[in-house]
């Protein structure tokens, strides 16, 4: 490779790395945030805030006791002035539906669990992208993945000399393989 060709290559490499980096910065941050959120899906609900409120209904009831009036009384205790419908999942329970909430009443115990659902701001939106919950987004996601590969490769080739890939870079590059290899070894044990 002549010096001119080499310089041109490095210039293109730098421009690609810089501008792709700028362009995809928002998406990289969104996916990283969502990645952390979804990693902990067992410990929290990354998409929705479900506020729960236990309600004491005083006394026990039977399925036959349930009437629209009683449902309105239960609803009032949960702070709801009207309901959409109610239904019986079992003989001991009635579930009342509202616009963005439900009240599950345990008729035997006379207890209600009121649950109100709302989208978790920012996380809901970044998770929608990360999960490809928009049909065509998977293609955008594929392009994004390909661009991340380009950003990474151009990053590896960016510098020359002792701080470049051929210098200390190769050691760091190699060290990056260690954590996943350890994880895979543990998985096989």
């Amino acid at each position, binding site marked *: 490779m002549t010096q001119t060709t080499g310089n041109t290559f490095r210039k293109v490499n730098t421009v690609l790395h810089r501008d792709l980096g700028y362009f995809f910065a928002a998406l990289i941050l969104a996916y990283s945030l969502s990645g952390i959120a979804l990693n902990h899906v*067992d410990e929290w609900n990354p*998409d*929705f805030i*479900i506020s729960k409120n236990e309600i004491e209904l005083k006394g026990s009831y039977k399925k036959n006791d349930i009437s629209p009036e009683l449902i309105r009384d239960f609803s009032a205790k949960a702070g709801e002035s009207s309901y*959409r*419908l109610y*239904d019986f*999942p*079992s003989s*001991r329970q009635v*579930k009342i*539906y*509202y*616009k*963005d*909430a*439900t009240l*599950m009443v345990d008729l035997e115990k006379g207890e209600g669990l009121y*649950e109100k*659902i709302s*989208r978790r701001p920012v996380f809901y939106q970044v*998770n*929608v992208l990360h*999960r490809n*919950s928009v*049909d065509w987004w998977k293609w955008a996601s594929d392009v994004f993945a390909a661009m991340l590969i380009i950003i990474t490769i151009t990053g590896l080739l960016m510098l020359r000399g002792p701080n470049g890939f051929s210098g200390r870079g190769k050691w760091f590059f190699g060290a990056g393989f260690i954590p996943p290899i350890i994880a895979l070894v543990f998985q096989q044990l």
Partner: protein
Amino acid sequence: MLRSTTDYTRNLLVILLLMIAGCTAKPEESAEIQPGNDRKIGVLLISHGSHSETWRNTLFELEKNVSDRIQENGKVSGTKSAFMEYTEPSIATRLKEFDNEGYTDVVIIPILLTVSSHSFDDIPTIIGLKENPESVEMLKLEKIERYTPKATPHITPLLDFSDILRKNVLRRVRNLSNNPEDEGLVIIAYGSEPYEKEWTELFDKAANHVHAETGIDAYSIGWCGHIVRYSPDSTASAISRVLDKKKTALVIPSLVAFDENFQIKIIGGGIEKVDDHETRVKYKPDAILPDSNIEQWIVDISEEYAANISKQ
């Protein structure tokens, strides 16, 4: 004379009316089933859905086995299968097909064991009978289409409605059992957080039936679904509880069909965590299906619903 003329006129009118009626009315039997003739009834078997091809094929096989029998009496014109999530054909896809084919009524048979959020909220929300806020949001996020069919949907009871599960568990226990005195039963099921009591009661009944029929008196239950975040630990712990009392644990997966992730990875993984599992645990990674009793139940309930719809 006057009376005779009046009688004559009346008789003539009666004869004329009878003649008109004779020309226009259909035979009595046809007249009775007339409302049913205006209807085109379909049967849709809805199951949870799975990434496992084996799982899906089992459900398609179930439909194949019951389809002709359901349509035998002429009241039902077609049967289809749908999956609630993960793969096509989805519920919306199938309901659109029924609508396009001119069906007026669809009997929906959920192939689900007992009450859960899927049976009670998700399926009714998908088909437009309910609008459970959490289901609406989750369905949107998981790209599960909601579709309100033009045909009238009729949802049947779940499998727990009959004694199918008890017979199924007993049959599978008998296949594994050699020495009931030394054995305990471990049932592993998907489970459902809001309805844990109903699930437990369902399997308590099955275990009591096994006890009455075989003498196996130790029993425990473990979950393998979302309720335990798909962890094998609940399986391991249920087995350990039985092994505290008995020499051998018979592990029965009470899941509709075989899914590698559940019967092998989660339940199998749980078994491997138990000390001496090679000698003390008996396990066949099978499922509730295939089961001829379930097939017959589907045929019977389809006929029952179709007959009622025809009478309406």
